[in-house]
């Protein structure tokens, strides 16, 4: 179980990756899955930094837990509510520098969804990865 608040800044992403990798390993994820989960969390946090907080100070609460055969990651921010309709990965056929983050998240995780955030928060993204027996 991990539940930690991080400043939403590019130079803190490495701390987030370390902490999530450790937590996912401890919760029984095999190593290749740990790498994928870390990538998904990094991409989701990047989007919070770049699109939700847009360069302003803020925090990201990172929660990692295990629910039976599922690793459950929740990212909670305190930015203005996101217009979920605007979030769409670009087609991979179109070659341009951006637009890969949400694609990566959906490619490596089994479920990616915004849920109603806890009161006082701005957004909550939940990502689930099915893993084997504990």
């Amino acid at each position, binding site marked *: 179980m991990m539940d930690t608040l991080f400043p939403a800044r590019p130079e803190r992403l490495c701390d987030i990756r370390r902490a999530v990798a450790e937590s996912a390993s401890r919760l029984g994820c095999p190593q290749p899955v740990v790498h994928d989960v870390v*990538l998904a969390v990094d991409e989701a946090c990047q989007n919070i930094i770049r699109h939700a907080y847009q360069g302003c100070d803020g925090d990201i609460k990172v929660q990692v837990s295990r629910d039976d055969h599922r690793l459950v990651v929740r990212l909670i921010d305190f930015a203005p509510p996101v217009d979920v309709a605007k979030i769409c990965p670009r087609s991979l056929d179109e070659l*341009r520098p951006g637009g890969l983050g949400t*694609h990566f998240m959906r490619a490596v995780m089994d479920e990616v969804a915004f849920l109603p955030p806890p009161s006082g928060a701005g957004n909550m993204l939940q990502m689930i990865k099915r893993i084997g027996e504990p």
Partner: protein
Amino acid sequence: MNLKTHENNGTVVVSLAGEIDLEHSPSVRKQLMELMFDRRDVLVDMAQVAYIDSSGIASLVEAYQMARKNATRFVLVAVSQPALRVLQLARLDKVFALADTVEAALAG
């Protein structure tokens, strides 16, 4: 993250190492784009890349597009396993020119 460059017969070899994430990709982008503005042929040695995310990939795509426009070379060399995984997720392993070694890329 660590970025070193050296020249080999007129081609610039950029060696990337470490974690290319949102903290470091702007500086990778800047240095690659400067080489592109100078219309240099560039090989990017990615053997020591331990981690790369979409922001790092975006810098490579931007440089690649610029190289195509300028008809200069832009080749990814000795791509590490974690970086290859991410290129594959983006289906860019079919787009970029890839080479196994700097020598092979220089010869090719």
